[in-house]
């Protein structure tokens, strides 16, 4: 059985409205608070979207995510249906998809992805490490749209309609992509258990 580990990319508590207004007005302290609040999920998403071994690119895309967010922030509808976290993750996702589609990035080799990380200590930790590595490797083989869909749904817990808006596709397409992505990832995980 897989060992339970604490995942850190749970949706963050949203920025309070007063700080958000101040950030929309461009106040430095509020903008910094926004970065500090959302940097972890952005890194978590980009790290998995881009794949292992491309840390400088992940950092660049994370920075670009926030710079674009600041530019568009005055137009963010505080009373609208979109949560700020979903909106920022949408920007990050689109940047990652654009980067991956540009074709400049070779796909992360499965072996590389599977061996990334600190060497495990005990047996339980070894299994956890193996599962995580296998999942990362399987994720790297998914088409970028499926990869984005499953990450937004299962890691960042966005609702399906939020994902549909983020990726500008219909709800049915999100369901379809999610179904395929989960099936492939499950296959990869089952290989570990066998």
């Amino acid at each position, binding site marked *: 059985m*897989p060992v*339970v*580990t604490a*995942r*850190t*990319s749970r949706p963050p508590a949203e920025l309070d*409205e*007063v700080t958000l*207004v*101040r950030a929309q*007005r*461009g*106040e430095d302290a509020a*903008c*910094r608070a926004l*970065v500090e609040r959302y*940097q*972890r999920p952005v890194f*978590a998403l*980009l790290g*998995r979207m881009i794949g292992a071994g491309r*840390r400088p690119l*992940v*950092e660049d895309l*994370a*920075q670009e995510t*926030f*710079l674009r967010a*600041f*530019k*568009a922030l005055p*137009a963010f509808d*505080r*009373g609208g249906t979109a949560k700020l976290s979903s909106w920022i993750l*949408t*920007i990050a996702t*689109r940047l990652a998809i654009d980067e991956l589609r540009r074709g400049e990035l070779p796909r992360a080799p499965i072996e590389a992805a599977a061996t990334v*990380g600190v060497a495990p200590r005990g047996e339980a930790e070894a299994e*956890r*490490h193996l*599962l*995580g*590595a296998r*999942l990362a490797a399987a994720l790297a083989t998914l088409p970028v749209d499926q990869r984005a869909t499953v990450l937004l*749904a299962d*890691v960042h817990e966005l609702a399906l309609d939020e994902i549909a*808006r*983020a*990726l*500008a*596709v*219909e709800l*049915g397409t999100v*369901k*379809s992509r*999610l*179904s395929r992505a*989960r*099936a492939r990832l499950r296959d990869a*995980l089952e290989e570990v258990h066998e």
Partner: protein
Amino acid sequence: MSSEHDDETPPIPGDTWGPDEAPPEGFADRVMRARAHAAARASVEERTTAAPTKPPSRRARRAALIGIVVMAAASATFFLWPNGRGGTSSGSEDALARTSVRLGGRGVAVAETGARLAWHVEGGAARVTQVRGDVFYRVEPGGPFVVSTPAGEVEVTGTCFRVRLTEEKNVNPMIKGGAIGAALATVAVVTVYEGVVKVHAQGREVSVPAGQAAKVIGGDAPRMLNGPDGEAGVAVKIDIPAEGDPAADAPREELLARDRRHRDQIAALAVRLGKAEGELQSMRTGGPRPPSGLGGERKFYDFTPEELKEMAKNCEIRYAIPQFGLEAPRISDKQASKLGLTAAQVAQGNQYLAETNEHLMKELRALYVEATGDAAGAETLDPQAMQTEIERKSGVVGDDIRKKIAEELAGLRPPGDPTSGPPLERLTRMLLAVSREARDRGIAIGGKANERMFVSNSSIVSGCSDEE
């Protein structure tokens, strides 16, 4: 083409994903430096772009000369202030971004982007000329402190307040040269957070206490916004706890704490103002719509002349368009089977959907940038968000646009030019044109029975503005 599945599959358990990639130490600092760098670069580019590439014309030179004379005249008035304690300080600011300005020893002004002001402080007396924009003032107690605006003068002794200048159509009909109409006037809204502010204009004066606001429309006497003379439905009640003036020897930390507190109060007020504006907008645009002459039928084509006239009466338009977004939609195998389409028809349909998607996204992005000036947002916002922003920037003008187009469709006025008019009008015309084409292409590719094969979004928008 692979089929679409609607079946729900259980999520990958959260405990199998492994550790997250974590941000490096000091990442927020790095972003803030990059932000400051980007802002500085944009400012330089703006100045460079604005710089004349050829010698100024005689007309421009004359305008500049007039400007200098005006500024000189303004400066001359500063020197008429009685000389008292303190030194002399003067300057001007044309805020390209939010800027804090020290007004000699008399206080601080925080000018929002686009604000323009000049100041002179001498012997404890300060005069600020605010030509435009939104400026927050924190004034230390002392001699006279006057903010002069095109709409009127604001006089204080020691307080916190904001002066926001806009241009509005004067709602009072004017008789000028025999013509009755509305004039464009500078409007000053003075909001007081602390102390008391006197607002003068046209020989009248109102005293505005903390938590209240006054409005001056150029040429009129000042009016309280939420006092006895308040404007019903516009004023927002502001509850700010009364706070005395700081002690003359108050330490810097205390003043900074006050400043932070006031900024928080301003931000909280902005939230409430936003909500109030939203409610006002919903009052303007919401409410029961006049019933459509089509009896609620969801019809989108082949209207009779009577139906079109009835729709025009209700400022109603209807369109049914394909889905569009960052990715072009495609006809799924399931849809193709349901509609009885051949592989060739599916290929033709997908080609049409791809071309329409490209056209709609390109035009929508261009209209969004034109309406908002936000080129970056055009790359990151989804189509729905861009449409909403275009509509929002247009305010209630949307009703007028629908009325105009509905009347054109009913033959009550000549057809308009689809390439001119404000962004919202062109967007509306584009959606109507795509709606017609989607139907035509549906018939051409799939036959009359499939006239709606490309349609996934249909809208009926009606209701005329109350001003009619």
